[in-house]
């Protein structure tokens, strides 16, 4: 995350991940936030590249304090949150979006999510939560976004 922001101020990063010490080229942790919206609307997502590196397949996503009104679950999702709105902080868990009988992810960008009950007040808390639930041991190397704080809002 550097200071060269695009016009909408969105900052995004990709981090390749290791499994047992070997870097899996197609396995990425990606994140995004708005430079001028500190501590709001942060996304962390785990994805892999499909065959030939052409298509990104999303595996899990955490949306923290989203400004887009939460997420509306597809009615065909499994679990108690099927067809319901989940709040602005929610978890697109792998098992909610995996179709075991067809051995594939559901179509779309992880259409099923559930609320996160745990209190996540800061970015650092979010990173800790992601480390535990995405099973990334040294996730603390993910830097805090260079958010621009307005002294006179």
């Amino acid at each position, binding site marked *: 995350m550097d200071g060269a922001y*695009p*016009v*909408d101020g*969105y900052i995004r990063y990709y981090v390749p991940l290791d499994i047992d010490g070997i870097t899996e080229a197609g396995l990425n942790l990606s994140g*995004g936030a708005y430079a001028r*919206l500190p501590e*709001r609307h942060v996304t962390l997502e785990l994805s892999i590249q*499909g*065959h*030939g590196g*052409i*298509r*990104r397949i999303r595996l899990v996503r955490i*949306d923290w304090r*989203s*400004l*887009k*009104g*939460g*997420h*509306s*679950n*597809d009615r065909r999702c499994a679990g108690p949150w099927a067809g319901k*709105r989940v709040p602005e902080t929610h978890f697109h868990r792998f098992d909610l979006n995996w179709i075991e*009988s*067809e*051995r*594939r992810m559901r179509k*779309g*960008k*992880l*259409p099923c*999510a559930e609320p996160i009950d745990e209190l996540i007040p800061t970015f650092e808390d979010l990173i800790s939560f992601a480390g535990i639930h995405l099973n990334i041991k040294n996730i603390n190397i993910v830097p805090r976004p260079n958010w621009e704080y*307005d002294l006179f*809002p």
Partner: protein
Amino acid sequence: MIAAGSISHEIQGAVESAVRDLVHVTRVGEAYYVNLPMLYPDGSFVTVRIDRMTGTGIRVSDAGFAYREVDDLDASRSFKRTANKVAETTGVDVGERVISVEANIETIERAIFDVAGTSWRVANVISERIFEEDDVVLSAELSTRLKAVFGSDKVCEGEKIVGASTVEWPVSAIVLLEEHKAVFQAVNDQANSIYRASTAFRDISSVTKQIRLIAFVRSKAILGPRLALLAPARVVEEGQSDESLRKAAA
């Protein structure tokens, strides 16, 4: 059928609660974010941002959310072109990443409708187009796999095969084997892709038995009963092993 007077208090309460929950507003600093009862393709709510300008002027924008949607699909290059087309009918401004309009407190409601509607349509149009382009993507994946398995010198792309009808059928790839050719066609789960492949396979197989026909699909399960339409071809899923590709071509 809905009978007059049959709506219970429970249903009435549920309806009223749902309606109250359809629109949300959040204030962040000097800006307002309004979540509307429309969904982007990822299931998030179409949202507009309202900023104050001078006097009673306001700026309503989508805060770049439609751009983020299409960027997530690796289709950001399509954003401006598509947004400009949609904006012709809604009269909003299209920036590099943001859809917006300047209005005032008298016209704020219509400005919200126009920006939100444009933002939703842009994300939706591009998302659907990406979906339709899936067979192009699948063809590229297939080509990469075939070259790795059989060698680049054995794989021909951009070829056509003439069927019994004399129609020339473009196919994804042809693999040249010692005694015969294996013709691979990427087939997605859209009706057009399946029916086109089905017709081509039957037409080509009527000419010669010296060609092996193979449909390359993402998932047989998704095709369901339409899988049978791909006969007389063999069918291989993208997730199957290289050995499966060799066996199918043999």
